């Protein structure tokens, strides 16, 4: 088993699923979205981040499963009070050593801690099949319904992502569909309609749809990593609300933000 790298264990997370949560951020992602708000999550290896004042910090460390479970269990009382738990995020947890991930999920479950998976969907389908009913929920990102655009911006086509989404929906997984909104790229009415059509056609009925407007929180970190930062446009409130209203004609729970 190769132990994956983790770049942050964030207690008191309130935007990664229901209740108070601890979110484990794994390092390494099959996509390379240029707007990523955690650019240090893309590489699978430890990296050095250098701040403006010259201070250097190594990001990425390995935890034996038992240690990570112990760390996550520290806030169990808060999960119990709020219906929260642990969210495995990234980077992409579903492409990490799957023996490790399975053991982590089962160890947490054995303590009575529910586990949510935050995923971009680009991972072997059998892994989603394996976890479909073991994870309490999936926060499932969708960037572009158009596969070519997806390849162009995120570094890979979306065919497998859509397939896995359908797979999870058919398996009855608890889905929080997260649509990343980039003004001028995926917020026009044609994109909205084709996205909606695809979801309806494939009988995807998420528990919630979360609209996540693009923001620049990743810029600071990208600079520290010495990476170029590419600017996108934050959609206007009007755009976001229009999207929300359209989705609400089909889905009952649509929120702005996680």
């Amino acid at each position, binding site marked *: 088993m190769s132990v994956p790298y983790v770049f942050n264990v*964030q*207690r*008191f997370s*309130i935007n990664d699923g229901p209740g108070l949560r601890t979110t484990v951020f794994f390092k390494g992602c099959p996509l390379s979205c240029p707007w990523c708000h955690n650019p240090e999550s893309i590489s699978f290896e430890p990296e050095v981040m250098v701040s403006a004042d010259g201070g250097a910090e190594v990001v990425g460390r390995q935890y034996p499963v038992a240690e990570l479970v112990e760390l996550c269990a*520290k*806030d169990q*009382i808060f999960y119990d009070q*709020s219906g929260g738990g642990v969210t495995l995020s990234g980077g992409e947890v579903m492409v990490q050593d799957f023996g490790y991930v399975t053991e982590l999920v089962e160890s947490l479950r054995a303590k009575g801690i529910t586990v949510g998976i935050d995923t971009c969907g680009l991972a072997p389908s059998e892994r989603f099949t394996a976890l479909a009913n073991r994870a309490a929920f999936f926060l499932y990102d969708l960037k572009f319904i158009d596969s070519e655009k997806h390849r162009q911006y995120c570094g890979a086509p979306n065919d497998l992502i859509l397939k896995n989404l359908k797979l999870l929906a058919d398996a009855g997984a608890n889905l929080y569909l997260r649509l990343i909104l980039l003004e001028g790229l995926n917020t026009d009415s044609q994109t909205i309609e084709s996205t909606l059509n695809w979801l309806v056609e494939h009988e995807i009925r998420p528990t919630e749809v979360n609209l996540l407007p693009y923001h620049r929180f990743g810029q600071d970190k990208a600079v520290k990593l010495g990476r170029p930062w590419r600017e996108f446009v934050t959609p206007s409130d009007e755009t976001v609300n229009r999207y929300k209203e359209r989705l609400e004609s089909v889905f009952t729970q649509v929120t702005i933000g996680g």
Partner: protein
Amino acid sequence: MSETKRGFTARTQRLREQSETTRPSISLERALIETEVYQQWEGKVPTPVLRGLFFKDLMRRRTLYLGDDELIVGEKGVAPQSAPTFPELCCHTLEDLDNMDARERVSFAVTDADRHLQAEVIIPFWAERATMTKMYAQLPEAWHLLFNAGLFTEFMAQRGPGHTVADGKIYRKGYLDFIADIEAELAKIDYGQDMRASDRKAELEGMKLVCEGMVILGERYAALAREKALECGDPVRQAELEELAAVCDVVPAHAPRTFRQAVQMYWLTHIGVTSEMNNWDAYSPGKLDQHLEPFYNAEIAAGTLSREQAREYLECLWIKFNNQPAPPKVGITLKESATYTDFCNINTGSLRPDGTSGVSDVSYLILEVMDELKLLQPSSNVQISRKSPEHFLREAVKISRKGWGQPAFYNSEAVVAELLNMGKTMDDARESGIASGCVETGTAGKEAYVLTGYFNVPKVLELVLNRGFDHYTRKQVAPDLGDPRSFGSYEQLYAAYTEMLRYVADVKVAGNNLIEKLFMDTMPVPLLSVITDDCIKKGLDYNCGGARYNTSYIQCVGIATVTDSLAVIKAHIYGDAQLSWDELLTALDADFEGHDATFDLVFNQTPKYGNDDDYADSILRDVVESLQQAIAGRPTPKGAKTIVEFLPTTCHVYFGQVMQASANGRHAGIPLPDGISPEKGADRHGPTAVIKSAAKIDQLKTGGALLNQKFTPSVIAGEKGLTAVMTLIRSYFAMDGHHIQFNVVDRATLLDAQAHPEQYSDLIVRVAGYSDYFNNLDKALQDEIIARTEQQI
């Protein structure tokens, strides 16, 4: 600014504006009447009778204030924001008066006439008689050395014991009923067999005199209202005044029968108790929602009161609290409690006597009033139990996250458990279990729980490291327990720390006992005794052990600093040997200047309290246990037991000012953390980790502990943020946490407020157990609040 227009009705808007814009002033009226009574009667009658005669005369002669819009009447001074002085406790010098008038913060207007009277009448009579003068003369040199070095403060230096809370008896009995109770006890005295007969008689006669004074106060207000009604050209106001007169015909002489009479009953009692003596400084209505609920329900059902009327009466009461600045303080007392706040605290939503949730419509009315008026006083808290409706908690959190520190959250189950641990009965703990003016628990109407002073815990370690020498006063103030360099183990160092702790606690407790005896002998409080069980029955004053329960609190400050400092010594001197005693002691003397590597080691690379880290938190548990062993359970002259609690008011600022740098990287002169909050900058894993660490203190064995959490607004915005805060509260209380409060103002706002105070006249922040205007705080305290860790993702 629109802030002054708060209030649900035009009337309460006007009253609030008056309350907020009137400059506090001192009033010598009370002191002058007291002087005359003492000149006539001192030495001729027993002390309780002397105090009773004074109070009755005060009620007969004092100026009565009845403002244009008022529905609820009574002021401590001659008008709103007028503070009487208490020369029998602290006889202010002329310099004190000049200082009060001139100082930038917490100032009081003093007129030339005041200065003249103080010089000619008050000082000649009271300078030698004041308890402060007597106690300073009697306290031993060892006490003065430690007091001046800032090892502890003394609450009774300028104030008397008190700071207590009413139970429900004043809503069931009027002062004529109390007189009947007293007369029955007087009739029972067995002069042949009872060796306390004459004392008992004196105590009861004093109590009877103050009840008569209360009746006079009501009668005079009824007469004044009628007089004003006759002169009044406005028929609406005329009717209001006639109704007021009718209210004062009933209360306080008789038990109240209506909601409005009940509110007025409390308020006249409040005025009586707080003018009788400066009882540090407060009196509080306690479980006001439960006390008023029967009147409210009956009148709503009968159609004689609307919800809006009830809310307006409550608003009038709130403004009355805000009209009373705490009596002026000077010197160290001002430093430990630098505020106008009179520490009135209202407990909403507490458990009922039968153990069920006490949340009622009156509880929600109180939340609405608190939110609408946004006043410093009264401090408002909610008591949350497992049984509290989620809706109540949610509504309270919605107000709390607006960021001005109210309401604070107290744990009902913890309060009850703490009281049971101190030996109270389950019935009393449930009926009267409250968190009083600040944070400490008490049994309302049944207990004298006296705060005796703050205890500077980290300075005890500083004295060990400096071999008993104090850098602040440049004196040897405590024993030399040896050169730390010679301590062969952490255990040896810790043993020296506990020995020093014992020494300081011994001196403090001996001082407490001397002061308590002084109050027992010379400063009875017959009115407070009348309304505190079982003083009438025992024929014994509140200050002499007449209350059913008696507790003496010592409030420990800075346990996070001492914990983290011990962690540094344990981890790096005796653990990994990265640090030598020489290097640490030199760095501390230099305030870490030129010792960057050492600072980085102790500040950044040591386990610290507040991170849910068992290495540091186990040291914290040792620190708390040692405090319990050194302090808890010690008896006092009147039969009280000493109890540890953790609250600071503003004393953490003063205590920091008298200290050199600490081993944990806290710089010299910087404030200590408040209550059980972590050292600033030490907690790095967010609020859940802080709460887990704080819950490792066995809080049920204390008299209360204050935890302050500061958030930036974005963290707890929206529905998710609301749920997050509710979860923090529920979880902390499930782990037996006693109290938690929230400050929700971002750093940028506070910095801007410091730079442009004129634009932030309405900015209220939570300080420690109470809220205050940011502009009322001195720079050090402002800086401290800015520096407190902002919990964010």
